[in-house]
């Protein structure tokens, strides 16, 4: 468990962020920010894959 931003808790590679309520129960806060690099990485992977495909095929058109 990695504490972050005071009462907010994030779990590595968790999909969601939770905090603890005053009763000690988990309260959903939103999506986990640990997903951010994955969305960025997906963009990079797509660009690299497409550029490589274009370079290999030598095509100037889709």
């Amino acid at each position, binding site marked *: 468990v990695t504490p972050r931003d005071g009462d907010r808790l994030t779990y590595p590679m968790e999909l*969601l962020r939770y905090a603890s*309520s005053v009763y000690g129960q988990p*309260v*959903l*806060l*939103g*999506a986990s*920010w640990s*997903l*951010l690099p994955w*969305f*960025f990485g*997906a*963009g*990079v992977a*797509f*660009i690299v894959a*497409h550029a490589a495909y*274009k370079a290999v095929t030598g095509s*100037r*058109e*889709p």
Partner: protein
Amino acid sequence: MRAAETERVVRHRLPDRLYHWIMAAAVLTLLGTAFLPILGWKFEWVTAHWIAGLVLAALVAVHIVRASLWLDFWSIVPSYEDLRSGWRAIGLAVGHRGPLPLKPGKYSLLQKLYHFAIAAVILALIGTGGMMLLKIDTPWWRRNPYWLSDHAWGVIYAIHDLCAMSVITLLMAHIYFALRPEKLWMSHSMIRGWISGADYRTHHDPTRWPQQQGGE
């Protein structure tokens, strides 16, 4: 200069170009104010974020009305011809021999699918973001965080967060294609408004996107 070199076909009229670039500024503002604080750059981001969100919502509302009433709404909707052409393109890409893909109308199938994806994400962001406005004080209303349960707010935030992160991926692909050398003829039209007659005939099917040449 030969007439063929000066032919112009209007692709994006001025209101549509203004919409695109103001929307780009709003989206970049929203992404910056959303993610820079998460990455460690602390500043007062909430006010700029919700104002940019309202600008984006207003722009999208205007765009929907304009596209429905003044533009060719169906030009951005995938058609049977698009799907058939897309199937042919996939076949060619994997080495099958067969008929060539058809030239597109104003937009290709992939552009239409991209527009569908980004429209769904942006509409979800506007919807959830609009609900989040109830949690902050603005000049027009006082905050009311008890409108929904904590769990319901968590779901709304989760949808907003996931859509916001997916905008990063979609935007990267959009900018990548806009900057690819073979797409610059099209990207330039989002600045100057027109494409050349040669590009029109090379990349489009005039029967699917009939245009008078001569510029705006």
